[in-house]
């Protein structure tokens, strides 16, 4: 029973985090970073 409850609680926490992140405006920040070529990722930054 306990083992079945843990993933549900973790899922709930994850969804809550996503919701809070969206509320804080993090989505636009993630998008802004992801639509620019990351100089570190390509080895010149």
């Amino acid at each position, binding site marked *: 029973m306990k083992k079945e409850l843990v*993933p549900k609680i973790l*899922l709930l926490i*994850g969804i809550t*985090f996503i919701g*809070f992140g969206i509320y804080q405006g993090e989505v636009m920040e993630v998008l802004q970073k*992801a639509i620019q070529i*990351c100089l*570190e*990722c390509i080895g010149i930054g």
Partner: protein
Amino acid sequence: MASLRSVVQTLSTLGFNSYLPGFLNGTIYRGPLKAICLPSLNCYSCPGAVGSCPIGSLQAMAAGLAYHFSFYVFGLLMVFGVTLGRLSCGWLCPFGFLQDLLYRLPTPKFSLPNWCTKIKYVLLSGVLLIPLIPTSTGIGVLYFCQWLCPAGTLEAAIPLYFSFPPIRTAIGALFGWRILWLLAILLFVSLIYRGFCRTLCPLGAFYSFFNRYCFFRIHLYPNKCNQCGRCSAACPMELPVTAEPNHPECIRCLKCTNSCPTGAIQFKYAGHTTKEGINFEA
């Protein structure tokens, strides 16, 4: 005949990197899907990438000035972790797929000492903490992306080098290091199965915490098990399957379920058992 897992890996690799104009024009996808993290290590500067790399996003957010901890990215990672666990590594990750292919090369094969699997947890700690240390510009360093990510070199640096000429004038010693590191990793994974996943991948380290509590679980029926040991012998990750079916290192390749002659090992999703006899290697 290709296994179902290989088909899914091929589709996910192509699907996650399906923005073809990027490869042709030396650009990257700039649409709204980039706001969503993919469940696997897939560089968001890959010309074809249609989503964000969760490790890159986690570091970039921590390194920035606005947020030092991204609830959004961390929450997405938790949801991926609890719904899929390391199934993402075994079935969806493009770099994992590449490792599977390279391990088929006729090179000598070696076992991995157990202590090596702990390195990735140190790297995960670095992913979460090092970007928080501000440099003189006030922005932190994306150390994993910058120095250690072979997926970024393979998926982003090399394609952009060939398709976007201005980059060629800007490369220096770091680019050289990245190429050497990539070659070393490619050699390493041809010798040791999933060597990068097991030793260095911070995303694999994150998902490994969820393997025991994930909706997707391997279930052992002790009354059916005859202790023949075929499951552990078949496990490419060298895990003691019957002792710990949901081991943190298990990438859910399901070779154990397919090798079991008595059907003692089956997988369940959210408590629901699959039909017996499904062979994912056929």
